[in-house]
């Protein structure tokens, strides 16, 4: 058992090694500051896309505005704050975690916690209740051949 698993691991490792080249020496080109900021803003005309990826005329004006403000010495945060003040939180790609969009961020976490708690409760309650059913040996009872195989494999381990 051990031998074949080692073989499988080594061959998989080789594949990973061969494909790992991409991780080497990646130095992104110097980021264009306007572009970086545009990436964090929603485009007013292309629905669902960020400002940097939208080729429309309005977007070009917005990008020019960002550039002008950067050239005037404003920081990236100040530029983002300017757009948020002017157009509200809807202009940001990432909705703020406070204010009107706070429930948006809370909902998924809340749902995951509540759902998992319910599942845990169901499991705990059913485990408390009633006699255990006939024990299973962990095999697929519907397929005698697979069952035999699995027993054999487990015996071999």
């Amino acid at each position, binding site marked *: *058992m051990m031998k*074949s698993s*080692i073989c499988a*691991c080594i061959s*998989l*490792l080789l594949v*990973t090694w061969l*494909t*790992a*080249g*991409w*991780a080497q*020496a*990646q130095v*992104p080109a*110097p980021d*264009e500051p306007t572009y970086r900021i545009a990436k964090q803003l*929603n485009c007013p005309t292309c*629905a*669902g*896309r960020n400002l*940097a*990826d939208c*080729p429309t005329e309005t977007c070009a004006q917005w990008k020019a505005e960002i550039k002008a403000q950067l050239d005037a010495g404003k920081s990236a945060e100040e530029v983002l704050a300017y757009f948020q003040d002017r157009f*509200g939180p*809807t202009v*940001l*790609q*990432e*909705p703020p975690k406070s204010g*009107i*969009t706070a429930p948006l*961020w809370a*909902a*998924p*976490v809340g*749902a*995951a916690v509540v*759902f*998992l708690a*319910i*599942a*845990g409760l169901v*499991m705990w309650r059913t*485990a408390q209740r009633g006699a*255990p*059913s006939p*024990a*299973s*040996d*962990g095999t*697929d*009872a519907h397929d005698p*051949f697979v069952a*035999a*195989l699995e027993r*054999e*494999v*487990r015996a071999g*381990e």
Partner: protein
Amino acid sequence: MLTDLGHLAVIFAFVACLYAALVSLLGAQRNDDRLVQSGRLAAFITFPLVLLGCLGLWYALLTHDFGVKYVANVSSLATPVFFRITALWGAQEGSILFWCLIMSAFVAAAMARDWEAAGDKPLLPYVTATMALVLGFFLFLELFLANAFVRSEFPPQDGRGLNPLLRHPGMIIHPPMLYAGYTGLLVPFAFCIASLATRRSDDLWLRSSRRWTLVGWAFLTAGLLLGARWAHDVLGWGGYWGWDPSENKPLITWLIATPFLHSAMIQEKRGMFKNWNVFLVMLTFASMFFGTAFIRSGLLTSVHAFAASDIGPVFMAALVIILLICAALWISRLDVLRSERQLDSAFSREGIFLVQNVLFLSTAFTVFIGTIFPILSEAISGTKITVGPPFFDQTTGPQLAALVLLMGVAPLLAWGKASYAAVGRQMLAPVGFALLVMVALFLSGARQPVPLLLFGLCAYTLAQTLMEYVRGVRARMLSLNERLPVALIRLAQKNQRRYGGYLVHLGVVLLAIGVIGKGFYGYDTITTPAVKLNDSFTVGNYTFTYRGIRPVPCEFNDCQTVQAMLLVSSASDGRVLDAIFPYRDHYPLQQHTATIPAISGSFNEEVYVILAGWDNNGATASFQVYINPLINWIWVGGIVMLLGFLVSFWKVPERAPAFAPVMRPAGAAAK
């Protein structure tokens, strides 16, 4: 003339639906098989009738019959034949008709099956009635609210032509796939309703409809992947998934259908979770219906567009009725849906399936809330808040990662009660492998902890899934003296569902590797200042040399195309690797500009370049460059997932020798 005949056929199909539903229910009530069979036949003939309707519209599209408003809207004299055929689903009216065609094909297939042999004949009248009513609803929409056959009084000389964005193979196959995925899910829903209506406590409906769910699921998967590929190739933002509502809606349904495929196994094997499975099937159907309403009613754009549309309120009313019927049926049958057994231990296959189900649903809920939040915020506060990809990435990411982990643990757990020691022992080798992979990646330069951990997770699940094959193949090779390929094929043949399922898991892991690679290591930039003719710029490992722009003939003569040429060479040794031609199409008629990327690089690192703009006839130009590591793994993973579906779905007839080992006593096989 033929077009009007098609219109008439669709009207007949609608009448046939109403008749089928009425007669089936009457037949069930009076226990009259002749009525039931009549209803079955009526439901069956909706398919040829709707097909006739589609043929009528196709005829109008092919003969440039611009008197039909729809034809003038989606095609023009310049539209080639192929796109005139696909224009059938190029806009609302035609696509509802096409949707009805695919749905009626599923109805006909369900009606044509051998109900006597399948042993579930008592379900027939209710299955017929459910399917006929749902199909009837969509035919109602087509006929009364979005009729594709309407003629205009003053036919234009030429049409407007097909939306340029839809002229991509991915976009042509994508809608039919999604429609097949959605409408295929009607079958398990109809069986489920029929089972509840007849107060059956067994899992007959589940067994009868499991394969149909799988078909729907596979089409949905294929549709999602093709949509992603289309977005990547055509939309020109470097990615493959933008968390757009029209993408999220099928994803939500997929996220609910997938746990059902797993929890159905619990009911089949252990007789548990019956009411849960009924709930999941209903939820799957409701999500499909809601999603369709959402996209088709204009709710997508704004609350006001929804209120103004004809279809929206009708859709919502139907959804409320469906939900009420489902809830009433479900609650009134809770007594017959009791589990036959108790859960022995949380540490068991069924326990981990429950956790998996819950995680899938909370992920679906996350996508749902992010998708409808703009509308909620508009309705409550008056401002429409846009929810961009960062929200979805941050909230679904951890949940999806947990699901990948579960995929690597669940197969080890036995039904009933699993032993910690046995599971731990089987995890050793894959965990070791994952650690090796993480060390290898660390040494080759990947230093961010989160992606490193995620790659380790993928490596673990990949190894664990492969081990499932290794164990089975090895057992066969030893006990039956089979050679490796024979053992592998026979193993999969003996339990196609299981090994097909593991193949799907493998595909998911490969896909996850692609998502992580692109998500954490992908980057993009724009050339500033604009590049001068014959100048070079470097991004990452690549140097690009700008060689000018030129106008080129547009593919279908209805646009102006400007193409740029760039030489790509290696940044380290200057070797020329490729010449690429990103271009822009401008469609004056539709006032639309499409930026079509040029793609280069290697399998593991895609280079994706967009022509962002130019000045002075190309004296200078600017480009957006995306480096997308591992993105191709997404497509490979998707193909593996679909292969896995084929393995688990395709019934391979077993040849006689394959039965022999089963006759052997279990002890004799062991060495």
